[in-house]
C-alpha cells in the first residue's frame, strides 16, 4: 500500500482515566499510570478479568472518553477525539438494524464523507472481503452473531484506518464460531497489517492473535505485564497444543487467578 500503511504507532504514557459517579462527587479511578508503546503494524491483545479497565483503555485510544492525566499519541499526534485514523469494532449490537449489510458498511463511509461515486462499490468490496457477498441485502436481524461481527469488521476496515480497535468483538459468540472468526480476522489482517489492538477476556484468543499480550490488573486498572508471543505467522490451530502455547497459557492463567484471589481477599475483608 501507499505511505498511509506505514503509519499507526501508538504511544501511551502515564495515562489515568477517572469517572465521576453519577449524582455524587465520588471519583472512581478506572485506569492508572498506564504506559505502553504499540508499534505500527503489530497486533496487540489486552487481557484481564472484568473491571480491570481494558475496555476503558481502548475507548480512550478511540478518543471516546476523556483522559484524566497522561497522554495518548498516534504518530506523534495527541488523541482527543475520534478520527479517521482509527476505527472501532464493537460487540454485537452496534449495527443499524434498519440498514442492510451493505448499508451498514456504507454508513461508515458516509460519516467520513467519502466521495459519492465510489462509495457503494467500496462498501461492497469490503462486504465481499469478509465473506458476506451473498448477504449484502440482508438486515442484521436476519444474520447470525458471527455474521454480524463480520459486518462490524468490514465497517471498520472500509474507512482505511491506521489503527483497528476491537472491544471484545467475539465476546458474544459461541466457542466454534469464535475460532473461525479468529482465523478469519488474522487472514484479513495479514493482507495489509494495520496496527490492531484487541481487547478480550479469553486467554487462548489473546495468545493466538497477538504479537504481544498486555495483561491488566484491577483496583485501579493497570498493566501487570506485557508478554511477547514468539509463535510464527500465519498462526494455525495446530499451535494451540504446542508446548510454547501451553506455556503462555499457564503464565497468563496465573496472572488472572492471582488477580481474582486478591479480589476475593478484599471482599472477605470488606
Amino acid at each position, binding site marked *: 500500500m501507499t505511505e498511509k500503511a506505514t503509519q499507526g504507532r501508538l504511544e501511551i504514557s502515564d495515562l489515568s482515566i477517572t469517572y465521576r459517579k453519577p449524582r455524587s462527587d465520588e471519583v472512581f479511578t478506572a485506569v492508572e499510570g498506564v504506559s505502553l508503546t504499540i508499534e505500527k503494524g503489530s497486533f496487540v491483545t489486552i487481557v484481564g478479568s472484568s473491571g480491570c479497565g481494558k475496555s476503558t483503555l481502548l475507548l480512550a485510544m478511540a478518543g471516546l472518553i476523556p483522559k484524566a492525566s497522561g497522554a495518548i499519541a498516534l504518530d506523534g499526534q495527541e488523541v482527543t477525539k475520534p478520527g479517521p485514523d482509527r476505527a472501532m469494532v*464493537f460487540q454485537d449490537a452496534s449495527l443499524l438494524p434498519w440498514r442492510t449489510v451493505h448499508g451498514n458498511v456504507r*454508513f*461508515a463511509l458516509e460519516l467520513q464523507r467519502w466521495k459519492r461515486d465510489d462509495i457503494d462499490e467500496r462498501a461492497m468490496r469490503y462486504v465481499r472481503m469478509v465473506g458476506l457477498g451473498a448477504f449484502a441485502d440482508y438486515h442484521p436481524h436476519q444474520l447470525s452473531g458471527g455474521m454480524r461481527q463480520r459486518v462490524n469488521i468490514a465497517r471498520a476496515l472500509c474507512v482505511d484506518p491506521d489503527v483497528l480497535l476491537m472491544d471484545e468483538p467475539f465476546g458474544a459468540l459461541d466457542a466454534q464460531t469464535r475460532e473461525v472468526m479468529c482465523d478469519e480476522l488474522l487472514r484479513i489482517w495479514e493482507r495489509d497489517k494495520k496496527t490492531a489492538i484487541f481487547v478480550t477476556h479469553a486467554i487462548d484468543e489473546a495468545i493466538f492473535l497477538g504479537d504481544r499480550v498486555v495483561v491488566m490488573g484491577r483496583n485501579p486498572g493497570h498493566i501487570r505485564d506485557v508478554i511477547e508471543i514468539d509463535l510464527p505467522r500465519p498462526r494455525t490451530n495446530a499451535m494451540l497444543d504446542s508446548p510454547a502455547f501451553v506455556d503462555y497459557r499457564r503464565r497468563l492463567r496465573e496472572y488472572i487467578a492471582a488477580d481474582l484471589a486478591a479480589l476475593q481477599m478484599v471482599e472477605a475483608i470488606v
Partner: protein
Amino acid sequence: MMAAILRRPAPLCALISFAVILAVWQAAVDFGFVKAFFISSPSRVAFELVRQVKNGELAANLSVTLYEFIIGLAFAVLIGGLLGLLASWSETVQHILDPFIWFKYSSPTIAFYPMFVAWLGLGEATIIVMAFLFAVTPIYANTLSGIKNTDPDLIRAAISFGARRHDLFFKVSLPASAPILIAGLRLAVGRALTGVVAAELFGAAAGLGYSMSYYGQKLRTTEMMASLIVIIILGVIFTQALAALEARVGAWRTGPGR
C-alpha cells in the same frame, strides 16, 4: 356447522358477524319488532347516503370536517413534533413542559372546549383548536421518547466513525425512532377526528358532527346515522392506512433478535 365457520380465518368471521348484525337490524324493522323511527334500518341509511351524495350535502359536510381535521392535525404534528424534539435535546425544556403535559394527560380534553368557545366563538377556529388539543399529546410524547431513547450503542458507534450532530439526528436517531413516530401519528389521527366531531356536535354551521346533531335534534334517525356511518368509515380508512405505513417503516423490527 357453527364449528366449521369458527375455524375459518379471522376476516371471514368478521365479515359474517357484520352481515348478521345488518340482517337482524333490517329484519327487526321490516317485521315490525322495532319502529324505524328509533333505529332506522340499513336500507333506509343506504338510500339516505345516496340522496346526500346526489344533492351534494355529503360532499359539503365531509369537506368541512376534513378541512378542520387536516389543519388541526397539521398544527399538532408541527408544534407537538417541534416541542418533542426540543425536549429530547434539552432536559430543561422537558422539565418546563412537564406540568402542561401532565395536566393534558390527566384531564379530559373536551373540558377545555367552553374556554375556547369563550375566546374564539362557536365554529371553525374552536373546532380546529379542539382537533389540535386532542392530537398534540401523543405526537409530543412519542417524538420525545423516540428520539431521546435512541440506543446509546448506536450513537457511540456512529460517534466513533466521526458522526456530527446532524448525522446523529438524521442517520441514527430519526430512522431509529421512525416506528415510534408513526405510532404517535396513528394515535393522533384517531384523536384529531374525535376532537373535530365532538366540537362539531356542540357548535358548528357545517360538518359531519354538525349534521348528526342537527338531525338528532329533529329526531331524524336515518339522516343522523348516515353521517355516523361516514365518520366510522373515515376513522377506519385513516387508522388502516397508518397501520400499513407503520408495518412498512418498522419492518426491520420484526424477526428474531434485533
